[in-house]
């Protein structure tokens, strides 16, 4: 019996989310009294770093470079069978969401997606929790099948790291069959942390008055090392790209710090961001509903406040 964790990579390096996944797998293994094994598809140069999360073994499936998620999922399901996996953990990410259903289907496994807690055993039943109603509530799920599959929401737990040690890498006995899907192209914005993984987010809304004014938001984000986001109206009228839209019908995020400038805080927006650990709201309207959901509020003109905050942060970073 084991916990199997899918390690995400990008350009032959582990993605940041993989630390959290490895840590989750190891900790879940302690609760369930079983070992944790990583599973990686294709070459990865820095797998050793995952030993800092307590992971000691990774099974590697050779990539066949055509990138059909269906046949990759089939290979993962085979490895899971070979390792008698009783819990499989994926990230709640584009790759995790693509692979997970087919893996779960092949293994007749019950599943819960977007979980935010380690498993607990209540009267012999396996339980995990997740945010539902786009973050407006939390639900505890029970999975009753022998094999369980979950996807873990980013920033759900903070790994406490140990010293790196030796990692055992085992070549999987399975290979990936050729699929019918061919990846033609991958276009990525380099240099920024994708929103679902970002720990620091600076977001702005209609209070910005126009797309030409976003410079102050981008500067604040740069100084902070944060990712930029926006409210729905702003994405809908084309001031900002769709992928920046956070909220109930956009991306749901749970960063450590969410700074919202010129966003009133409609319930649909709050649904996607209220799991942020700390929320700072800048709005000149004292009646803005967002203040009720905030930890820190500044009731003033954002065109005045944002540059001041950027200056203060520069001073702080320099000290």
């Amino acid at each position, binding site marked *: 019996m084991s916990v199997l964790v899918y390690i995400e990579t990008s350009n032959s390096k582990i993605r940041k989310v993989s630390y959290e996944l490895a840590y989750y797998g190891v900790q879940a293994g302690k609760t369930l009294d079983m070992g944790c094994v990583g599973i990686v598809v294709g070459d990865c140069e820095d797998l050793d770093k995952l030993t800092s999360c307590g992971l000691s073994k990774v099974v590697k499936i050779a990539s066949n470079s055509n990138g059909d998620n*269906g046949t990759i999922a089939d290979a993962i399901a085979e490895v899971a069978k070979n390792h008698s996996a009783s819990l499989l953990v994926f990230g*709640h990410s*584009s*790759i995790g*969401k*693509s692979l997970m*259903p*087919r893996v*779960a*289907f092949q293994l007749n496994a*019950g*599943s819960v*997606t*977007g979980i935010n807690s380690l498993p607990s055993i209540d009267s012999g039943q396996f339980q995990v929790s997740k*945010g*539902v*109603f786009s973050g407006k509530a*939390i*639900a*505890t*799920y*029970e*999975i*009753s*099948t022998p094999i369980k599959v979950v996807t873990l929401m980013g920033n759900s737990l903070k790994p406490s790291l140990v010293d790196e040690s030796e990692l055992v890498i085992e070549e999987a006995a399975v290979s990936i069959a050729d*699929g*019918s*899907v*061919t990846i*033609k192209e*991958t*276009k*990525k*914005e380099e240099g920024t*942390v*994708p929103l679902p*993984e970002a*720990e*620091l987010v600076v977001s702005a809304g209609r209070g910005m008055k126009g797309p030409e004014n976003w410079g102050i938001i981008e500067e604040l984000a740069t100084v902070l090392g944060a990712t930029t986001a926006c409210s729905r109206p702003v994405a809908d009228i084309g001031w900002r790209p*769709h*992928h920046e839209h956070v909220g109930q*019908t*956009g991306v*749901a995020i749970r960063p450590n*710090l969410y700074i919202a400038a010129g966003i009133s805080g409609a*319930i*649909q927006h709050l649904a996607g961001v209220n*799991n942020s*650990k*700390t929320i*700072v*709201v800048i709005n000149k309207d004292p009646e803005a509903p967002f203040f*009720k959901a*905030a930890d*820190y*509020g500044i009731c*003033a003109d954002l065109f*005045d406040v944002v540059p001041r*905050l950027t200056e203060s942060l520069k001073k*702080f970073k320099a000290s």
Partner: protein
Amino acid sequence: MKILVCVSKTPETTAKIAFKNNDSEFSEDGVQYIMNPYDEWYALVRALELVEEQGGEVVLAHVGPATNDSIIRKGLAVGAHRAVRIDADPSSSEFVANQIANHAQGENYDMIICGKETIDYNGAVVGGFIGAQLGVPYFSFVSELTSTAGTHTVTRDIEGGVEVSEVSGNIVLSAAKGLAEQRIPKMKDIMMSKRKQIEVISPADFHTTAKVVKYELPSAKGGVKMIDAENMDELVRMLHEEAKVI
């Protein structure tokens, strides 16, 4: 082209979320329902556009009781040709996917489209399970889709960018923002929709594998600390020392 669009019923986006029976059930008191926005705005409209270009029909699939017919009628008013309702309580994502896949088996849909997730349980797996059961390629979070003579170019959202794939044959996909623009039905369309067919079929047996046992509301914030606009050094200090986020 024959396209199946899966539509769900969800509480509308401003609905107050509350629970009953010792926090084991969602309370429907005073809750207004809508068609899941991703299903209506993106999945359905892109399906209609493809059929308008190339001919064929758009069929809606819904798992739910007869009281949900108003949701299905909305989809028919937006433009779907007919609908199939599987007469059962949509108890879990796996259950819904299994029922829809059972229906789709033998119907040979060129394409099955779901919204990227529902805004209530945020599962994002129904399309994936349908694809797995039918043995058909599945693409999540598709924001662009073109289709010519059975070959599809699929652009899906990935972290920080997009991935463009090519595939031939039947596919299943989930629709994200950008795939299409919402259509508002006209009065004439709403009247017409009443004459369209909703075929009701009985559910197949399915053993539930995961269920909610308890709900809770997130703990309330401790109250906002207002900070003077002149004093951003103080905010930075608090973010560092008190909140410990920078």
